């Protein structure tokens, strides 16, 4: 037991010494790993914030239900009742004919027109906000359904916005997937290479140890410590980078968020995000070590 502890202690010490013996090289490796991890992590965060901003603001599609001009109070209430039970809607509000009239009267070039009219020519209308997760097709179905309700004269869907949002989301998703794929491969390359480098600097030690009766476990142990420690440190570096970038981006993002009038608050990395990031980095360090040792240790 004490011998077991001594062996692990030795391996850990060796790994720590190797990490500090060539500080520039270590720093550069850590930097490469950090950057490779920071990009998809940061991209994910950006997408999350961007989506929130887009959805909270003008990008949300709306359904406008125009009642017929002769619809009375009761008919309007009935539609309100129906809308209340629609699961697909997040919210809706009544825009009364009076409101619309007032708005048009305030618009330049319309005041005279309106005042020249005998009565209020506008109908009551509802503006309904659908749930975020509805596809363009689902929205279109909703529109068709609403237009068959009694005393509903017309339903308008701001479907250009919906389609635009869909296309943007599609684009973002493809982009993030490609990024993750490329950086996943890049990360594998970096880890693999770093461990190969460590194996190369220790080639004579490995050979001699084997000739003196060292087991594969004994020979591999310091490299596993090295690889996982490096991965962990790289993950921490990625965390720092993402946090720093998020700080730098806060001002312009909030300017954007403010413009969209959604009152969006910027999300940063949660404790769970950080835990996942560090765990992923450590696991990747371990995996890279295992792959590299499998290739470079057996001869």
């Amino acid at each position, binding site marked *: 037991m004490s011998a077991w502890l001594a062996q692990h202690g030795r391996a850990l010490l060796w790994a720590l010494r190797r990490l500090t013996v060539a500080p520039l090289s270590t720093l550069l490796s850590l930097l490469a790993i950090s950057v490779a991890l920071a990009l998809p992590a940061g991209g994910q965060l950006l997408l999350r914030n961007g989506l929130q901003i887009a959805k909270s603001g003008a990008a949300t599609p709306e359904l406008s239900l125009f009642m017929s001009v002769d619809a009375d109070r009761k008919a309007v209430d009935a539609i309100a009742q129906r809308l209340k039970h629609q699961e697909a809607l997040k919210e809706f509000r009544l825009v009364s004919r009076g409101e619309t009239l007032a708005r048009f009267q305030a618009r330049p070039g319309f005041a005279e027109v309106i005042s020249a009219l005998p009565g209020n020519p506008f109908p009551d209308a509802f503006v309904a906000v659908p749930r975020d997760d509805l596809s363009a097709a689902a929205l279109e179905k909703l529109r068709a359904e609403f237009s068959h309700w009694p005393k509903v004269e017309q339903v308008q869907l701001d479907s250009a916005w919906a389609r635009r949002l869909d296309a943007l989301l599609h684009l973002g998703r493809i982009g993030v997937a490609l990024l993750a794929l490329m950086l996943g491969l890049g990360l594998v390359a970096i880890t693999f290479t770093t461990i190969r480098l460590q194996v190369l600097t220790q080639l*004579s030690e490995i050979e001699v140890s084997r000739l003196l009766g060292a087991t594969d476990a004994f020979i591999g142990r310091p490299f596993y410590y090295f690889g996982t420690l490096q991965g962990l440190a790289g993950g921490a570096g990625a965390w720092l980078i993402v946090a720093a970038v998020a700080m730098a981006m806060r001002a312009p993002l909030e300017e954007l968020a403010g413009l969209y009038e959604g009152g969006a608050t910027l999300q940063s990395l949660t404790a769970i995000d950080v835990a996942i990031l560090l765990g992923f980095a450590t696991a990747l360090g371990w995996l890279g070590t295992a792959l590299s040792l499998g290739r470079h240790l057996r001869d």
Partner: protein
Amino acid sequence: MIRFEHVCRRYPPNIAALTDLSFNVEAGELVLVCGHSGAGKSTLLKLIAAIERPSSGAVLVNGQNVGALKRAGIAVLRRNLGLVFQDQKLLFDRNAFDNVMLPLAIAGYPPKEAGKRVRAALDKVGLAAREKALPVALSGGEQQRLAIARAVVGRPAILLADEPTAHLDQATAGDVAKIFRDFHQVGVAVLIASCDDTAFSNFVPRRLVLDHGKLQ
């Protein structure tokens, strides 16, 4: 303790390094393997440590067929041998003390006892004062003695030494020969490959003379 049964070792393309070798070495024997350059001395020692495998025949160490061992078995075998390599195989990135410590670290000795043993071994080869020196700071002969210290530090039951006196002057070679004799006298089987046997001439009880891979 060590037993060769009709051992042949051929190297590609067509080199017969050892041909039909049969002999026994008992515990506590000191055997000098002699022969010209290229006679097969190193190959013979490598077969015992499973660094090479016989092309045919069997090499038995403590009754175990060494040529049939798996990775783990080979590691166990080597931990019970003391090896001096012809090219020494010292580690140049660590000092004399740590070089001698290596086999004990591999065997998993507690650090305290290991330290004591390392100092004793360095003392035996006359390098006690240089335990902090890196191998590059040692002369060729001192490196040779360091390699011997590493081989004996684990107090193995079998000691294999390939040209252990190659870089030594006559006086130092005599001292080194005495170290091997001491081990031989406490019951360790010692095999020494050497083309120059003057250092051992006054006390060697047994000789294996190789000529082009055949026992004479």
